[in-house]
């Protein structure tokens, strides 16, 4: 692991291919750091715990006996979709 020391107001740049990601230390308060990120919008930035939780959940959803699982689920799920709502909105 590369270790760098930075003061408030200082930043680092991570270069990924032709993309630059700039991370600035904005504030330090009782052990909590506030970070600012500047990156192209296709670079997605997440809190590690959220990303890792999704990784774990995705892995947990892989099951061996898919027939049994499907039968269990079918009993639980109603089959009534309402056309009232659409599920995505485009910005």
């Amino acid at each position, binding site marked *: 692991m590369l270790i760098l020391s930075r003061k408030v107001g200082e930043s680092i740049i991570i270069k990924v291919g032709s993309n630059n990601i700039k991370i600035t230390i904005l504030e330090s308060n009782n052990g909590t750091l506030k970070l600012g990120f500047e990156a192209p919008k296709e670079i997605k930035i997440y809190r590690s715990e959220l990303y890792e939780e999704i990784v774990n959940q995705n892995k947990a*959803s892989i099951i061996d006996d898919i*027939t049994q699982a*499907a039968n269990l689920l079918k009993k*639980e799920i109603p089959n009534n979709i309402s056309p009232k709502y659409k599920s995505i909105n485009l910005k």
Partner: protein
Amino acid sequence: MIKDFDTKLGSVKIDTEKIIKFEYGIPGFENLTQFALLKPESSFPIMWLVSLEDKQVAFPVILPQLIRNDYEIILPEDISDYLELEKPEDAVVICILTIPQNTEDITINLAAPIIISLKNNKGLQLLIENSEYKIRHYLKDEIERNNQLLSVQRDGG
């Protein structure tokens, strides 16, 4: 070109032009990029997002509106550009189910839906932060909530 693929659901014939490409991978499965959405009648309304590269990998998925009638997400512009979406109908939104041994504990991931473009056959798992949608919603609670919502809609017109 129609090709045979070995999947968790057995051998399936898929038009290679219709393969769903997850170029950025799915968290935890970053090395897999080619998927298909299978809708066997026997497991309806559950569908399976199956890997065409690793036959062990199949995600049980469902249309979130079946579980949560008012499910709604906003796609950031860069994502709808990447998926070449012009209108909401250009995409299929599905959510992954986690099915443990005990059916009481089945959960649905509403915080990280899978979006598949019908325009360019690209797919991705969107991570939604800071919303009412969580990674684990108990299916039982959701269905109960949904039934209440639907009965209000019926009664209220």
